[in-house]
């Protein structure tokens, strides 16, 4: 029964992805938009490259190590954009009444929200370039991949997606009380895009602490990279943190789900 349910939901996701792809292709310029998003991605890494090229290394991180860090972030962001992008769009859904429609459909509302925002287009360039950067950096750095390393990276990527989704959903759920939460998500977006491009240890202790324990975005790419690149010693508080991305991902998601449920209950009683 539960397996049947699982495959039903999987198929639903697939249908939503497909319908989004079709909608995207309805408009002209599909190819141009895809190409532009690839170029944007390349400019992103080029800018980092330009800065790092001046210094050769930052705080013990070489250029290729930073490329690895960047690739990991892009991979996580791409998977997030594929499946969970709507975690950050809740206030829009509340304001225009689309949430009401979701609530009268026979699907889990959170699943429906995610499925509706699923888009192969949004993360299209990152899903190609993220792994590409990882592979090329790993080659340049001459990394030795063991099965454990690979497994850990895989789980950390999933954990990172969990962190990103959980953080976005938690803050997005503020919309259940105030209608507006987009500005807070813009704020988080800036954190994600600006702070995660460089190793965490270049920032002050305060920011390191915040990005580890308050907005745990460092678990998206920094801590897993420290594990793979053997930099466990530079980590704040405890080197043990480098193993925790999968766990933090699960915890963030669980926490966010509680906030979402609580928010939904409040929505039903206040209708804001």
């Amino acid at each position: 029964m539960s397996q049947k349910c699982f495959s039903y939901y999987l198929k639903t996701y697939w249908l939503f992805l497909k319908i989004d792809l079709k909608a995207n292709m309805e408009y002209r310029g599909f190819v141009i938009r895809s190409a532009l998003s690839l170029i944007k991605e390349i400019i992103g890494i080029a800018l980092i490259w330009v800065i790092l090229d001046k210094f050769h290394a930052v705080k013990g991180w070489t250029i290729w190590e930073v490329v690895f860090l960047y690739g990991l972030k892009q991979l996580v962001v791409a998977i997030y954009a594929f499946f969970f992008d709507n975690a950050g769009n809740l206030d829009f859904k509340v304001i225009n009444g689309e949430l009401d429609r979701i609530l009268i459909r026979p699907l889990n509302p959170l699943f429906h929200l995610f499925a509706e925002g699923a888009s192969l287009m949004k993360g299209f360039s990152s899903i190609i370039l993220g792994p590409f950067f990882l592979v090329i950096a790993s080659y340049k750095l001459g990394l030795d991949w063991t099965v454990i390393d690979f497994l850990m990276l895989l789980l950390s990527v999933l954990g990172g997606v969990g962190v990103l989704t959980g953080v976005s959903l938690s803050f997005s759920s503020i919309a259940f009380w105030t209608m507006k939460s987009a500005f807070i998500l813009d704020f988080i977006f800036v954190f994600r895009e600006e702070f995660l491009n460089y190793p965490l240890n270049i920032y002050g202790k305060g920011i390191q602490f915040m990005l580890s324990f308050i907005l745990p975005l460092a678990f998206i790419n920094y801590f897993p990279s420290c594990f793979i690149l053997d930099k466990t010693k530079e980590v704040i508080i405890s080197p043990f943190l480098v193993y925790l991305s999968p766990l933090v991902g699960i915890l963030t998601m669980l926490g966010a789900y509680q906030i979402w449920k609580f928010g939904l209950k409040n929505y039903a009683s206040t209708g804001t």
Partner: protein
Amino acid sequence: MHKDKKNDRYIISFKNVTKIFKTRKREKSWFSREYEMKKAVDNISFFVRKGEFVGLLGANGGGKSTTVKMLSGILSPTEGEIRVNGIIPYKQRKQNSYNIGAMFGQRSQLWWDLPLIETFKILRHIYRLSDDEFRKNFEILCDVLELRRILNVPVRELSLGQRVKADFAAAVIHFPPIFYLDEPFVGIDTLCRMKLREFLKTINIERKTTIILVTHNVKEIEGLCSRVFLLDKGRIVYDGDVFDLKKKCENYKTLIVEFRNPEKVSNLLLPGASLVKRDDNKFWFRFKGEVPVEIVNFIVDSQISNFTITEDIEEIVASIYKDLEEKNGQSF
């Protein structure tokens, strides 16, 4: 036990339901925590039998939409008990969603960028309809609502009327026993409106679909609904036959005239009508029954730029209150 049996006869039971909204007072400082309690629905009870076609009538802010949102399971009641087809809607949203179809105003559930057919394909999956079921329902809806020609047209290229027809079909693709409609006809041309009314009549009679139609316009429920609730300030002030309500409407009418030179008519008196409101050069007169000859003469004689005769909801509510007062000899 006996009581439960009795309730089983009703597909919708709405018992002593109150809904209170807490809204923050705006004019105070941003950080103040003063709230205003607003009773959107104030201890309402009503029961609907399977196959009834109910009109929910009332002015804006009367509590109509809140009522429908509670019936749909989107909102939970602050107090009271709601059962729809044996289910508590907001607690069992998923089961409830199979039992209901809903249209909220002009909010569309169609996929804007895609040919219309795509919306139905995904809805078939969402409502877990078998191929046979889907084909059967879809064929019927296509025929009645004339969708066949536009199935491959992207929704954004449809006219408003076509889109609303398609939205009707999308809302009931699973042929639910209950259909809620909140102001579905706003802005639609007469021909399309007639078609949609025909459609509602058909599913009401042939499929025994229970329909709740929310509107602020008396004309829209005429000829459709077998029963009307009139909501005002969160309470039901009238529950009964449409014809009786219609009679009450005919009692009072309002004449709105706009003068070119209002100075000349500052002390205006019309026999058989009373001046109820004035706003610059616009005057509201209330009168009973047929349009009096004096008014016709007056309109012909005066320099009027515009005039209308309406039977608006406020007037009906007022006349119902008046009737109640006369009957009970007490203020309502």
